[in-house]
């Protein structure tokens, strides 16, 4: 009887712990989502400010606008969205690097403010991704460790993927190549 009670209490604790970890993962993912949407709002401003000056980089500007429209349409899977967001990151990084080539843009106060906002948002996204990865790691650990793995398999919980930086993003931006 006593053993049964103890087993029940332990089981409930593990169950609640797993639910908490799963919700923590969802919460952290929604935080990333909020910040990514915040970045979407900055894209039209960036394009509007630089398009008159950067006549020779219209293709880059059009690319980032297209990616934004595509991701905002909503008809993409989670994996596709992740790829698109990574592409947006890369395109925005390219635009920021190209601005260095335009002294009149660089000295513009509005452009500087916009760049500061983009930089801040990127850092916040990075922090939110780190939070997501920490939550997923904790969740995945619980799914693999004994005895929580027994309860997790009963609840049909599956391990989740971490945010991984693509290889091309890990490489340093080659500004020379961009400007040629």
């Amino acid at each position, binding site marked *: 009887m006593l053993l049964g009670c103890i087993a029940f209490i332990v089981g409930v604790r593990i169950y609640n712990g797993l639910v908490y970890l799963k919700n923590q993962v969802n919460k952290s993912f929604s935080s990333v989502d909020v910040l990514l949407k915040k970045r979407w709002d900055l894209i039209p401003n960036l394009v509007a400010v630089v398009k008159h000056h950067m006549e020779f980089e219209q293709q880059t500007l059009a690319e980032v606008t297209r990616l934004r429209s595509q991701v905002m349409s909503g008809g993409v899977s989670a994996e596709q969205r992740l790829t698109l967001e990574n592409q947006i990151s890369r395109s925005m990084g390219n635009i920021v690097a190209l601005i260095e080539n335009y002294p009149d843009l660089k000295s513009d106060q509005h452009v500087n403010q916009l760049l500061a906002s983009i930089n801040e948002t990127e*850092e916040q996204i990075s*922090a939110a991704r780190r*939070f997501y990865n920490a939550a997923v790691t904790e969740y995945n650990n619980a799914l693999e460790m004994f005895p929580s793995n027994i309860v997790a398999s009963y609840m049909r919980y599956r391990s989740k993927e971490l945010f991984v930086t693509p290889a091309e993003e890990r490489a340093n931006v080659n500004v020379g190549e961009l400007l040629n």
Partner: protein
Amino acid sequence: MTKPLSLNEIDRLYIQGDRNLHQGKFPAAVAIFEQLLETVDSSEEIYFNIQRGLIKAYQQNQQLEQAIALCQSIAQSNVASTALWGQNFLTTLDPNYQKPIEIEPEASVSQPKTAPSIKLKTLEQFKQYCQDNLLEHLQTLEKSRKRTLIAMMIAGIICLFMTWCFCLLISSFWGVDISVLFYFYCLTIPASAWIIFCRGCVQVYGLGFKRNIIESIVDFISDRGQLNYAAHLFIENKRQTIVALTRSQILRNELEEPDYLEQEDCVYGTIGDTDIFFAEILAKKAKGGHLDEFERESYLSQSILFRGLFFEARFAKNFVSRTFVMPNDFKGKIAPLHNWRGDLIKLEDPEFDHTFRVYGDSQIESRYILSTNLMSRLVEFNKKARRKVYLSLFIV
């Protein structure tokens, strides 16, 4: 004709004037600083500190006209940092005062003015600087240190000997054997006097060290006058430190304000866009008695809340939540029991996680503040400092 004062007398008078200023005895402070200003040569390093003390004393003593007049003369000084201090303080004394605007023809109008950053120096440069500028002071100080030590030892031996003679006298007068316990009992009064004497000696030596060495080192580090040094700061700065210290929650309780604060070796200034201030502080909490800043002697007992180097700076990122980084020891682990510090933040840097414990209101903002770069720098600093490092980030 005013009698010239020795360096020690100047030091003693300056400490006394500064103490009077801190204790609210403004007329006495004015008298001492005025006397010092007449006797000390304007080329002496302490001269500006005396002027500054006198202006503060005039201000507190409601002698605004004299304060403004002296401040105006400082504002026209050839030394840029001195003139800047004078101009800044004039705006406090006289609301109608217009700060002179320096026109820099090549500066961009839209760019905000940024203080120059500090170029880090090498150890070799520092050694060379010490050789060229500090060696003479250091040699003088070394002599002074030895003299101070000898004086303290002689005074100690005299105390022991006099007490022994006193005990012998008592023994022969009463005709009884004197126990060791009685000897130590008799020693309490001379020992107290000896401790007071030693403290005075150390204080005088310490002031010489601060004035000649620390200030020069600060000047060496900030080659373009970004940083300023003051042996002590004034009441309003003290209040600012008390507020920052309390809100930082380094102390156990957010609402627990120190009753007594001592701050020495204050360094302040602007590097790049960042205003910084750091000082050695001692914060105490008084128990019982009358809790008045100027009536310390009426306290029944005092307990130390914080002793160490307190660094205050404006953080470059925007945030709204609070983040606390504390050593990963027993005190850090039970910190949430004393005070609400938010959730435990588990960070991904294993070395940082092993060294520190982080609490914060927001998981994301704490990570936004504690970037991977900042974490590795904190770990490195902790290794170098070999002291407990606390970090509090909050909005003012």
